[in-house]
């Protein structure tokens, strides 16, 4: 038995030595890997529990593959801890770039900085981080302008008097507040429009259904609901249908999700703001490709226009974009 044990120790020592040699080899860092055969790019998405983000993730993945990269999608499940763990994995595995949809505008900065320190460029999609020196570029929807447009249409449809509810998204996300502030920059100018409840439903359809059911118990006479995304608009609409109020209460969403665009066409939802996840994802993938080929002069922020979709112009749109 003794010789066997001895050989095991020798084998272990050789393995550790090989590992150390590989790890310490000069020039084996991520930057050189990017220039070599390693073509793995990570797509880190805040949640895949929302069809809009699935479109964002799949478009980014498909565009990367078309450009010749090996793309892996990571789902953070709206959990900053999971997101941090993904970045640990990405850095340890030496991915060459990250297309990133953050969970938190402040909390996600550290992850981007860690990747940057490891030589891995990060390109933010749709959601912003509150730093301009961490990501290579941030491709973001112009949420404020979109919400201003929704607010103006809201006043046009609901009128200058009435009661309404606002469902907010994730409170740590800038998109939540840019949409809310854009909407209120218009609606608050009409004192007759009274917000009877403002609650977060975390951009989640099931949560919005629960919140809306509770809100309707206390406020059965509302005239409208403004939701910070279309998943919540669908949840709110479902609650209104269950309460028999869907005909009377007007629902406004934000995103341009497929089911909401269809319901606008059927006159069941009043409006949404069309974001363009495919444009953002493709642009991020192409920017990453250009970066890895040597380009460095990227604008820090690239706002992407958001367009109002109502029953009047819904024929020009489909889920997640314009009809092609």
């Amino acid at each position, binding site marked *: 038995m003794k010789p066997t044990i001895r050989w095991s120790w020798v084998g272990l020592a050789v393995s550790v030595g090989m590992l150390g040699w590989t790890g310490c080899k000069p020039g084996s860092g991520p930057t050189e890997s990017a220039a070599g055969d390693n073509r793995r790019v990570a797509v880190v998405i805040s949640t895949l529990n929302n069809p809009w983000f699935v479109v964002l993730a799949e478009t980014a993945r498909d565009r990367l593959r078309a450009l010749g990269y090996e793309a892996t999608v990571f789902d953070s499940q709206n959990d900053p801890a999971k997101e941090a763990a993904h970045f640990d994995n990405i850095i340890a595995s030496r991915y060459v770039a990250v297309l990133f949809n953050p969970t938190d505008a402040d909390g996600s900065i550290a992850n981007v900085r860690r990747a940057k320190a490891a030589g891995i460029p990060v390109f933010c999609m749709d959601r912003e981080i509150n730093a301009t020196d961490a990501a290579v570029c941030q491709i973001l929807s112009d949420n404020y302008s979109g919400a*201003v447009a929704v607010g103006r249409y809201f006043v046009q449809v609901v009128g200058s008097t009435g009661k309404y509810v606002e469902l907010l998204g994730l409170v740590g996300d*800038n998109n939540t507040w840019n949409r809310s502030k854009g909407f209120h920059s218009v609606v608050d100018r009409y004192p007759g429009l009274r917000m009877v409840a403002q609650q977060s439903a975390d951009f989640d359809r099931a949560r919005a259904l629960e919140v809306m059911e509770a809100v309707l118990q206390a406020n059965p006479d509302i005239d409208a609901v403004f939701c910070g995304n279309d998943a919540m608009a669908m949840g709110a609409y479902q609650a209104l249908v269950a309460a028999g109020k869907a005909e009377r209460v007007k629902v406004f969403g934000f995103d341009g999700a497929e089911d909401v665009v269809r319901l606008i066409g059927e006159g069941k939802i009043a409006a949404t703001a069309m974001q363009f996840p495919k444009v953002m994802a493709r642009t991020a993938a192409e920017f990453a490709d250009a970066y890895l080929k040597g380009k460095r002069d990227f604008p820090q922020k690239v706002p992407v*226009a958001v367009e109002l979709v109502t029953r009047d112009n819904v024929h020009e749109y489909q889920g997640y974009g314009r009809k092609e």
Partner: protein
Amino acid sequence: MRPRWWKWALGIGAVGLFWWVCPPVHVVPLETGRQRRAGDRFDAEAFVEEFWERRLLPAEAQAIRAEVLLGLLQTRPEEALERYGRRLGLSRSTCFLVSGQGTVVTVDEAAVSLALEPGGPVAVVIGLGPVFGNTLRDGSGLLDVNEFPNSQDFNAISAALNRRVEERVLPLLKAGAVPGRTVAFAGCAEIHDPRRELFPLRVVPFQIRFP
């Protein structure tokens, strides 16, 4: 056994006092909490105060004349968009910095309409408020989104600029605009699609004069 209730009372009192001095949790409204984290660091009103006087008003000298812009948009729209338009990121709409002088054609509660040549058609409309959106911020071409780490700050500038237009510029127009009177203006206009919605040009003014 002597009762020890006073020890318990003293202990509970001490803990209560400690929590009162150093509360373990603070309950604040969502919006207030958010503002403490991000919004309060940037004073949009103070920023606009300086921006308005030192950068925006002098920018009138760089504005394209409204009649020149409208003429070019009709004949060579691509050139007009390229030479004089400003687009924020990947956007279909374009903003312009414009100035001009015209004759008041109509005045109502919502807007003042102007003809740019005597007896001509209405070519410019100036709304009398409220003012919404980013037309003035983006049309001026003086502010770069990349200089603002938090887009909420960049958007707060729009709100502050719009308030200033409503408070300082539009009252002048409301007070002085009567049909037939000449008005000089400088401001910004936004066009989504020059093929569909060119006339009249809707201007958000930062300068109004009655020559």
